[in-house]
């Protein structure tokens, strides 16, 4: 059981008639970086608060390090938490913020000093120790907030959208630092975000949540390449996946004039079943130019809008009157109005059942 850092069993949380979390099970390994990803209202922060003990579940159990902590106070659970709004104590210095909890727990003075110094060193906030949060920048504040979790010397860190109040550049920087921190500390980290880039880059595993349920829990790679349903497929990836509605007949996907033999596609059920289906094609998996003709499935689309982004170019077109996005190499010139030949590898496509939206 030592491999299990945080376990959640049959967790339910209702606010009156509203079911925020439903029969949720989650098993987080020791040292794992788990990201809870979802749009707002999906219950990801609620779940995190339940793990932290800030919210009481209606039913179910929570274990941390094999101990049932369902009824324990947050401070007794062996967790540290970082908040979106930093939640620093504004009237105390950085040092005060870091040490306040420890002083309360009657940790010996030299031990406090050791831990504060270590956290400050790790986070490179030593020069800031005597300042108050009001005099810090957003990034510095967030480091202090992380430091406050760090000094607690706990096994599990909880992050509640820690980077969303920062600007893009800083967010990228801190993201890397967080990853480095995880490598260095090797603690279990549970991280809530709505930003898929953060999720993809940081996570060992991602749990995609919707409506209080976990849609898919897997490594970023699997989530990206083999989304279990249309929601996950749509949610992950930028620009988002193209969906073409059609039918699957004897291993061939048809949508209007477009046909695609699902050669090499790894069906979830083992083999193909006929019926209406949706094909999900990632814009970056579409092959253009001369190589397109070599692909098993091809079609022609008209470039309606071209968005050059430097490294790559995004092309907007239409397939069956639905918007269709293609991402191609930035140095290939494309004119608006140009007809493009594109090729698709069925092995990299995701097929979903039209009615259940589950992966086929």
């Amino acid at each position, binding site marked *: 059981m030592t491999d299990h850092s945080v376990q959640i069993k049959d967790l339910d949380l209702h606010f009156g008639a509203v079911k925020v979390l439903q029969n949720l099970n989650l098993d987080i390994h020791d040292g794992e970086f788990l990201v809870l990803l979802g749009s707002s209202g999906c219950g990801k922060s609620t779940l995190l608060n339940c793990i932290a003990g800030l919210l009481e579940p209606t039913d179910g159990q929570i274990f941390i390090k094999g101990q049932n902590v369902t009824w324990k106070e947050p*401070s007794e659970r062996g967790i540290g938490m970082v*908040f979106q709004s930093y939640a620093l104590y504004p009237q105390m210095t950085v040092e005060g913020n870091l040490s306040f*909890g420890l002083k309360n727990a009657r940790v010996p003075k030299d031990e406090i000093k050791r831990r504060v110094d270590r956290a400050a060193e790790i986070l490179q906030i030593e020069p800031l120790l005597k300042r108050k*949060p009001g*005099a810090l920048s957003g990034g510095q504040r967030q480091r202090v907030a992380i430091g406050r979790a760090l000094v607690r010397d706990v096994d599990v860190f909880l992050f509640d959208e820690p980077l969303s109040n920062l600007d893009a550049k800083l967010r990228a920087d801190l993201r890397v630092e967080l990853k480095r921190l995880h490598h260095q500390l090797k603690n279990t980290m549970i991280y809530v975000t709505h930003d898929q880039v953060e999720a993809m880059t940081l996570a060992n595993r991602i749990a995609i949540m919707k409506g209080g349920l976990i849609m898919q829990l897997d490594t970023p790679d699997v989530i990206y390449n083999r989304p279990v349903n249309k929601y996950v497929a749509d949610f992950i990836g930028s620009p988002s996946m193209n969906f073409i509605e059609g039918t699957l007949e004897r291993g061939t996907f048809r949508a209007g004039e477009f046909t695609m033999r699902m050669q090499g596609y790894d069906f979830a059920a083992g083999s193909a079943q006929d019926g209406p289906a949706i094909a999900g094609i990632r814009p970056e998996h579409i092959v253009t130019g001369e190589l397109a003709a070599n692909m098993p499935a091809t079609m022609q689309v008209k470039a309606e809008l071209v968005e050059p982004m430097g490294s790559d170019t995004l092309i907007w077109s239409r397939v069956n009157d639905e918007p269709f996005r293609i991402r191609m190499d930035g140095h290939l010139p494309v004119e608006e109005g140009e007809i493009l030949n594109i090729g698709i590898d069925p092995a990299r496509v995701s097929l979903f059942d039209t009615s259940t939206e589950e992966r086929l």
Partner: protein
Amino acid sequence: MAIAESADTVAPERSAPQKRPLRLFRNLSSKIALIPMIATAVIVFMGGTIWTVVYSFTSSGLLPRLNWVGLDQYERLWGTTKWIISIQNLALYGICSLVLTLVIGFVLAAMLDRKIRFEDAFRTIFLYPFALSFIVTGLVWQWILNPDYGVQGVVRSLGWESFTFNPLNNPDIVMFGLLIAGLWQGTGLIMCIMLAGLRGIDDDIWKASRVDGIPVWKTYTRIIIPMMRPVFVTAIVLIASGIIKLYDLVVAQTSGGPGISSEVPAKYVMQSMFGGQNLGQGFAASTMMLLSVVIILVPWALLEFGGRKRG
């Protein structure tokens, strides 16, 4: 977050004009709009104050007249037992009222903030006395504290014959009789202000302190209260301005009695001006009151509003 931020906003800078317009006309609308306020501040409050101070050096009786008598009025003022007692009473009442109003107001607000049932009902109950005037407050508490019909009488009629609670007729504790009524009237507003302040505190702070394992009371005293500094400033301004003006309640409840044991400075002023028809004496007493206000208030105001830098 807004709480931590300084309220100071830098005056909007015009993009450097080629020819700087005359200083007086910059922000002209603002200056025009502030004329009523400036007129009030300068003509009424400052002018009235200066007028009062000037006439405190005269022997004005029923009408203000410029018969200079130097510091005579002040000498007499400080030689008068009633004035000394008034100041002592105000100090006693002021300290008790300030501390108790803040403490009770905050504790009640904190209790209402603990996600309790019937919050609306409790809040309305605590706030309604503020809708009533001091005259009414004084009257009803005089009635309740009446030794024959009120609390003392009722307790005695229940069989506890020796029970004594007669603050309004006991010079030693009469100020506490006033305090009971004053707190009843004033704590509700302060509670509302505190409650509003508590509601303005980021939920994450509470969560952070729970994760840190800080006990609730310590979270209040060490984190929440320091964060509510602006709230306390507003509250203290309100309470203190009420304390200095304490008059109606005393008149309605005790008329300064028994004897002169519940006299207060504002009443001394009124009594001198209109009872004794000695405006000069009243103005001298007013001047002393104003002086103490200025001594306390100006350094604070400069710090609060004048200073550029604030954490």
